[in-house]
């Protein structure tokens, strides 16, 4: 069975510094894989690389990204654009700034549907209503006529989720979709993502720094640090029997409700230093090999 997403030895550099170092991971059809790491580990950068939206000063120096067996980077621009938003979708991080402030919700969803699925205005309207209902928005007709600033942050995130799943994508990249929300809303969002991905049969790459979220929704997970994959496997296994020291440190650092009096235990600086020097050594080796 061809993997929905197959990243192989991907190295991305910004100027002289590597931000992704030979990353390999796979997402199978229908799989929900968590991508964990602290800020700056390269999680978002990987998502952007898959979407082909790296910043202007970043460059892919090695590796390949395959979507359903097709090489994304070797593809023609127009072909890749036909995949984005339709077969590969993004749930962005910040609901406050991710919607166009001067267009109504209905127009934004409708444009997407008409652009990728070629629906008529009427058909797009019907489908938009269906989508909004799917993400548990009450009064979908009213919401379609509203502007983003007229609905709450939680509702905006639901609209973004609806737009991600609108064209039945094979892969959804969720870029820390719960980070900007408060805890009660987080739970609802996670439930929504789970429900929709089941309904639309999508695989999900769930980017987050929150191990709790991973535990709840991701069947498998990959741990990233300094642009490298340190550990990966089934979530249950990784969380109960972590193999890498870093993973163990991450788990130990997570505050626990049943041991509130315990002091927080950050990841030991010595370990971090060791990991970083390993990363730089790898850079040198790779550079020399060239």
């Amino acid at each position, binding site marked *: 069975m061809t993997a929905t997403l197959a990243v192989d030895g991907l190295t991305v550099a910004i100027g002289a*510094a590597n*931000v992704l170092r030979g990353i390999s991971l796979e997402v199978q059809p229908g799989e929900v894989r968590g991508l964990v790491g602290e800020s*700056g580990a*390269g999680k978002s950068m990987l998502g952007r690389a898959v979407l082909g939206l790296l910043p202007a000063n970043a460059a892919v120096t090695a590796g390949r990204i395959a979507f359903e067996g097709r090489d994304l980077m070797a593809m023609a621009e127009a072909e890749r654009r036909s995949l984005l938003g339709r077969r590969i979708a993004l749930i962005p991080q910040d609901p406050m700034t991710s919607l166009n402030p001067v267009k109504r919700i209905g127009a934004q969803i409708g444009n997407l549907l008409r652009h990728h699925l070629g629906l008529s205005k009427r058909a797009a309207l019907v489908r938009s209503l269906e989508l909004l209902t799917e993400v548990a928005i009450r009064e979908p007709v009213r919401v379609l006529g509203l502007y983003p600033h007229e609905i709450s942050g939680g509702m905006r995130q639901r609209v973004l989720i609806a737009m991600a799943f609108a064209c039945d994508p094979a892969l959804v990249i969720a870029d820390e979709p719960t980070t900007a929300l408060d805890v009660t809303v987080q739970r609802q969002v996670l439930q929504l993502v789970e429900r929709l991905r089941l309904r639309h049969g999508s695989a999900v790459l769930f980017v987050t720094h929150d191990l709790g979220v991973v535990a709840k929704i991701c069947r498998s997970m990959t741990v990233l640090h300094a642009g490298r994959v340190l550990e990966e496997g089934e979530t249950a296994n990784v969380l109960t029997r972590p193999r890498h020291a870093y993973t163990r440190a991450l788990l130990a650092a997570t505050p626990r409700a049943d041991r509130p009096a315990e002091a927080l235990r950050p990841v030991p600086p010595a370990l971090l230093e060791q990991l970083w020097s390993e990363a730089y050594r790898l850079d040198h080796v790779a550079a020399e090999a060239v």
Partner: protein
Amino acid sequence: MADIALISVAAPPRLRAGLKRGGLRLWIGAALVALLVLSALFAPVLAPHDPLAQDLMSAQLPPAWMTGGDPAYLLGTDSLGRCVLSRLINSARTAVMVALIAATLAAAIGVALGLFAGSFGGWVDQSISRLIDVWMAFPPVLLSIVLAAVIGAGLTSVIAAIVVVDWTRFARVIRAETMVQLTRDYAAAAQVIGLSRARLLRLEILPNLVPLLVTLLAVEMGIAILVEVILSFVGISVAGDTPTWGSMIAEGRQIVYQAPWIMALPIVCIITSVIGLNLFGDGLRLALDPVQRS
């Protein structure tokens, strides 16, 4: 991925580095401004004829390189037989004089008010800002024409018109910049060591405003030249026969089909001067300012 913040140190710029920063703009601007200033300074020497001397026998001669031209009158003559080149050069003299005086005065008033508004804040700032807003609501062209018409023709009224119309340009920018400078560390440090407000302004802040001031002065001179052209075009500038680019344009407009060069040549001079001043001011700002602000 850790970001390494780059701390820029405001060291005194070295001459060569400064000139390089100024770039092409500085050189071209300086050349044009030099051309203007030198023409103005050495007008009596450079002009081949007396700008006021009329020779009706040689009226409306085209420039020397066109058919019918006379090599004695390189750029031709106007309806009264006066040498166009000589008049152009002498007009440069008027233009530069007016521009220098008017720009300096506008700067003096604008900078003073801007400094006060920016550093004192409170009701001083409020009232000065209100004043600027209301002042800027008047259309500048009409205002300067009204002023000059009201005060009567002459050098004073032209300068007064320019100053009155455009001092706000300095005031606004200096005010904003003063407020920014006051938030900088060196200002706080100076106040800690007990510098009075006036000395703070004079010794610490003003020097930091110099690059900005220089650009503004250059731009203001360009504007002064333009206002003078407008006023002399309309007929209410320096009195009498004193040649000005604006009056040459006004005369030339009447006979533009018969002798287009009389209108065209002053325009070339004006555009060259204004663009030269703008480029020079821009280049100087880039050269003097060690921390480049876009």
